[in-house]
């Protein structure tokens, strides 16, 4: 599933009464669960681990003057910087939660993000 479809699907789910949806294609499986209960913080339940935005702001794949060659399918290490969110004069690091494969990049460079918005999905290994 590509990023656009995923984003569309999440947006669409928010407009319905659906709380959970599962999508299967061969070995890949994605379960989306809306976080309607503010006491539970996990936005999405899936075999993949979502990487959430640490703050509201503008997402950048790399700090100013740096480059970053992340691709879907790249392997990532726990703690590796996947990008930054620019808020005011600060850059908050977005880091990989575990060693694994970067399965989905659900954000584009320079796009505004909300606090808690999923930016990447990593399949732990």
């Amino acid at each position: 599933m590509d990023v656009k479809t995923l984003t569309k699907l999440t947006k669409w789910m928010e407009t319905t009464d659906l709380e959970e949806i599962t999508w299967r294609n061969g070995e890949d499986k994605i379960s989306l669960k809306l976080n309607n209960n503010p006491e539970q913080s996990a936005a999405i339940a899936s075999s993949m681990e979502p990487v959430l935005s640490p703050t509201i702001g503008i997402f950048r794949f790399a700090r100013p003057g740096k480059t970053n060659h992340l691709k879907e399918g790249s392997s990532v290490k726990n703690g590796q910087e996947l990008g930054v969110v620019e808020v005011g004069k600060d850059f908050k690091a977005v880091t990989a939660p575990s060693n694994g494969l970067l399965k989905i990049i659900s954000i584009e460079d320079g796009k505004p993000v909300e606090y808690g918005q999923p930016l990447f999905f990593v399949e732990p290994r």
Partner: protein
Amino acid sequence: MFKKVLIANRGEIAVRVIRTLREMGIGSVAVYSEADRSSLHVRLADESVCIGPAMARESYLSIPAIISAAKVTGADAVHPGYGFLSENAEFSAACRDNGITFIGPSPESIQMLGHKAEARKMAVKAGVPVTPGTKDCVKKDFKKEAEKVGFPLMIKAAAGGGGKGIRIVREASQLEKEMTMASSEAKAAFGNGDVYFERYIELPRHIEVQFARDSHGNVIAFPERDCSIQRRHQKLVEETPSPAVSKKLRESLEKAAVQLAEAADYVGVGTVEFLLTQNGEFYFMEVNTRLQVEHPVTEYITGFDLVKEQLLAASGEKLTHTGSHSVPYRGHSIEHRINAEDFSRNFAPSVGRVEEWMVPGGNGIRVDTHVYAGYNLPVYYDSMLAKLVIWAPTRAEAVERSRRALAEFKVRGVKTTIDAHQLIIQDADFKAGKTDTGFMERLLAPAEPVKA
């Protein structure tokens, strides 16, 4: 006028601001913490954006997050509501530095009027009577200063507010101990240990005057509000006009507010708080540089929309009323703050899911709230659920209408202060308009359990 306004707040005040924006054809942006995802202001706004986790420090109090939200959504102005960043000069300055209009006074005005000792100096300069007290923050010679002011006196934190940071000293022997505590408390709570002294006035009334001023120099002072019904310095019931204020006294109060607004070159809406003694003398207490919780009572008797006046003043336009400082009013209005607190357990906070929520209605009733049936009350923020605002042609009729409305108000799932309000309006002194800041203490005294 603005095209899109971001509301840097939550709860009923965010809902209230969104309503005026919609009537004026201005776009609205709600910001919310993770705990407020399902709050009413998020549902009502044209756009909404999550700015951080539940803790207010990282969401509603985070200046970078809110400025960023305004930029991301393209809002050209920010309405701060009350509480949170509404009286934060740094926030007002951050908005200005980022080309966003702060709907409120300039950072300079906030700084000057928000610092109580500075505000006092301004009042003296404007010819407004102040309570006997020290001119500045007290230093090492505080004992001598205290003798001059006389006992009983109050130690007040220069950076305090909302009833916090006040200690009463009844005799000289307690001064040193209370002074140490007040100073360290102020340091811990406000990051500023400066304190000053003021004569403590026994059983005063809390009277305040709402004013609005635009950048063209037009000033309106509205009829006074009486907020004497307080518990631990937190207001419970507010009404306007005050049963204790004559036409002549009203004119003096309004004049004082106008003088202060002009002296401070204030642009926006604000409120001057006064203490009114039993003999009818009034003293300046402080200025609130924001829209206040109890502003609807003023709106009810004058027909003004104070949020609209804020927007007009902030965008450089003229207030809707110009040419005179006072405005006509009609009837009487009472506001009841309905909090999620258990009245029978000494007002302990109550949390949970609001199972049933039936609000009163009919002639002369306005309910400002962000609550609905099924709403999960977050534990992180203040306990106010709703403001029940009553209007009637006379005070006596307003009290009767309050009684009717409170009886209609049905809430299940959380405990509320509705019971406390019913007790207040049935009280003979309240009905007679004989209230002062000691009212609640006297009302609750017989209800306190006897210690075994």
